């Protein structure tokens, strides 16, 4: 169902009625089934409506630039619509664009200057890609001709609105190229021209929510998951395990393995067995050698990146690379980390895969049976159903990590000027029946690629 909610601001009663009728006809012809049209006839009324529409923006505003107010004009309404992000698109009706009488009265040069200054003033008040400056039919035209002209122009506005509307909700990955400094060798440090740069590509996210501006944010753990969620079909859902598989940086394989089942969980063994290696028949020394061989080709880079991470000097694309290595190493990641800790003289540190701050929220009880809990359903209010306890209980560590990750994503969006987007996720992204689902209101269609 296509729907539109629009505001027409016009102080001439006849033209207001005509605009209302024409917009309705055009949108019906273009397949809109629900059309709501509100009207205002003064600057103050329009600005009040712009303020009130902050929570529920207009899809389209048709605004007369000259509203017959002594002090304020349609441009001031435009500024309010921008300030309160309360209109997706605006068609600004002017009377100077091609009105020959302007040239007759003011002279061609002055008339041209007026047109240009009006446009530039309008584009300073509202994003140009969502603003159409449209000329009203001249009052000197015969009525029938003027109506046809108006109808055609409104048809064009409706077509542009249909096209531009696709970019109202954007969350898509983009590659940003930048120059990154390469560390010079110690002996080259003082040489002229020793500083070298290489072109690197890093993952960024282009984001727009509703009537706000498009902005680009650097990658943040959780954005890939969020991207997946926003691109899901209606009715589809995502369980925490699958979500953390999408971005596996937070997994804690070493936590697994103290279950009450007979055999102790050993993800390393499972990994090699799945590759067809007769793990149980091998001696301990042979097992260790095999692990070393498996680690060898990634381990050097892993250590480099971990060192940079500890120095807090990890760039976005290096962070991405580390996450990929951790994901590729799978259960061996914990062994790589153990080895790295030994190398850096931190033998007493707990052995963990490099994780981000979400681990603060993960449960400390290492005796939790992760495989069992992972099968449990999530409670709508935040807990999950544990078959072992036979009632509503706590989230599994995986579910908790996922919940923390989503919360951090929202915080990141909020801090970067996307408070409305964060609030939207809080309202429409929910965990029910063991999985996360997203049920946006009608009209929210994400552009994700």
């Amino acid at each position: 169902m296509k729907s539109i909610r629009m505001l027409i601001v016009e102080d001439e009663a006849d033209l207001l009625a005509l605009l209302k009728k024409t917009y309705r006809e055009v949108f019906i012809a273009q397949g809109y089934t629900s059309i709501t049209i509100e009207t205002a006839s003064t600057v103050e009324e329009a600005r009040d409506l712009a303020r009130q529409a902050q929570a529920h923006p207009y899809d389209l505003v048709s605004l007369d630039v000259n509203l017959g107010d002594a002090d304020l004009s349609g441009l001031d309404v435009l500024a309010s619509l921008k300030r309160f992000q309360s209109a997706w698109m605006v068609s600004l009706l002017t009377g100077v664009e091609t009105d020959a009488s302007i040239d007759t009265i003011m002279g061609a040069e002055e008339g041209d200057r007026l047109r240009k200054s009006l446009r530039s003033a309008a584009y300073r008040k509202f994003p140009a890609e969502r603003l159409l400056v449209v000329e009203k039919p001249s009052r000197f035209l015969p009525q029938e001709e003027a109506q046809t002209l108006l109808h055609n122009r409104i048809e064009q506005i409706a077509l542009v609105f249909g096209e531009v509307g696709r970019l109202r909700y954007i969350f898509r990955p983009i590659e940003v190229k930048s120059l990154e400094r390469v560390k010079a060798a110690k002996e080259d440090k003082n040489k002229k021209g020793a500083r070298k740069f290489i072109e690197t590509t890093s993952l960024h996210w282009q984001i727009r929510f509703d009537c706000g501006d498009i902005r680009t944010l650097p990658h943040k753990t959780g954005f890939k998951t969020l991207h997946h969620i926003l691109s899901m079909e209606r009715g589809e859902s995502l369980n925490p395990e699958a979500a953390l598989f999408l971005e596996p940086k937070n997994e804690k394989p070493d936590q697994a393995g103290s279950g009450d089942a007979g055999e102790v969980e050993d993800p390393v063994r499972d990994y090699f067995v799945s590759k067809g290696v007769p793990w149980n028949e091998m001696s301990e020394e042979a097992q260790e050698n095999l692990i070393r061989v498996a680690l060898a080709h990634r381990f050097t880079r892993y250590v480099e990146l971990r060192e940079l991470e500890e120095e807090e000097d990890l760039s976005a694309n290096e962070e991405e690379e580390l996450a990929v290595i951790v994901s590729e190493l799978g259960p061996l990641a914990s062994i790589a980390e153990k080895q790295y800790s030994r190398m850096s003289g931190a033998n007493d540190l707990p052995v963990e895969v490099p994780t981000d701050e979400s681990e603060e929220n993960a449960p400390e009880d290492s005796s939790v049976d992760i495989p069992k809990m992972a099968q449990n359903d999530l409670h709508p209010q935040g807990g999950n159903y544990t078959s072992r306890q036979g009632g509503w209980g706590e989230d599994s560590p995986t579910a908790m990590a996922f919940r923390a990750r989503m919360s951090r994503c929202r915080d990141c969006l909020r801090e970067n000027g996307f408070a409305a987007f964060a609030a939207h996720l809080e309202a429409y992204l929910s965990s029910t029946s063991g999985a996360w689902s997203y049920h946006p209101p009608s009209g929210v269609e994400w552009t994700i690629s």
Partner: protein
Amino acid sequence: MPTAIPQSWELFPPHSLVIGSGPMARALTLIFDAATLDYPSIMAGPEPGDGGVFSKKPLDELTHVFLVADLKMSASDHLSGFEEVWKWVEKLSPAGDCHQLAFIHVLPSGAPSGFESSLASGMALDFLDPVSNANGVWRSAESLSDLLLVLGKLVPKDLVFFNGRRRADKRRIALAALKMAAISGSASEMIAAATEVRKVFEDNEYDLDLFCSQPCHPTGNRLRTTLRLLVTTGVTQEVTEALRGEIPSLLR
């Protein structure tokens, strides 16, 4: 040095703000559970947070501003406070110039009778009115119930409203033209603009103080002398060039 924004404003954004010092300002702060700033603090502007960014929370909920004048203050000093409040609001409220505010000008009982009309003139208003332009006046000799009456009538307005009035104000247009002529116009354009300024201020020449930078009255005197020089005496090329730099610095 900019004024540090009280941390409490971040946690509990104030609804009312009292600008001024002295017993009347303190009493109003208590009665209306308001936040308070003295004139030097408000004139210094707010201090930005980390990274030079202003939080948009501290004045998000501000609805009423009490501007408390003392006997030493001229209308132009008081008006400077009004202008500065808007600068604070633009920086510390998400709605910026669309944030709606109502002003209560608290005047000492001995304030000159033309004080209010000067204020109105500086704001490009015909008169101060709680309903049509969000400006209420209360003299400290009046009763508290009169103040409550004014408060009840106030209809808030935003800066766009005041800017709209200013854009249409003949006096501001003439002063803007003078500034432009001083910056980039010819000597004859400067003289023409100065003549126009003198013409629009002929009713009350001292209203020029309202549009001059601090200290308003001495600066106003300097501007009046300059205008007289330009219009009546006529000036040499050298003097005109010297005035080019001076005129913009005299105006607010």
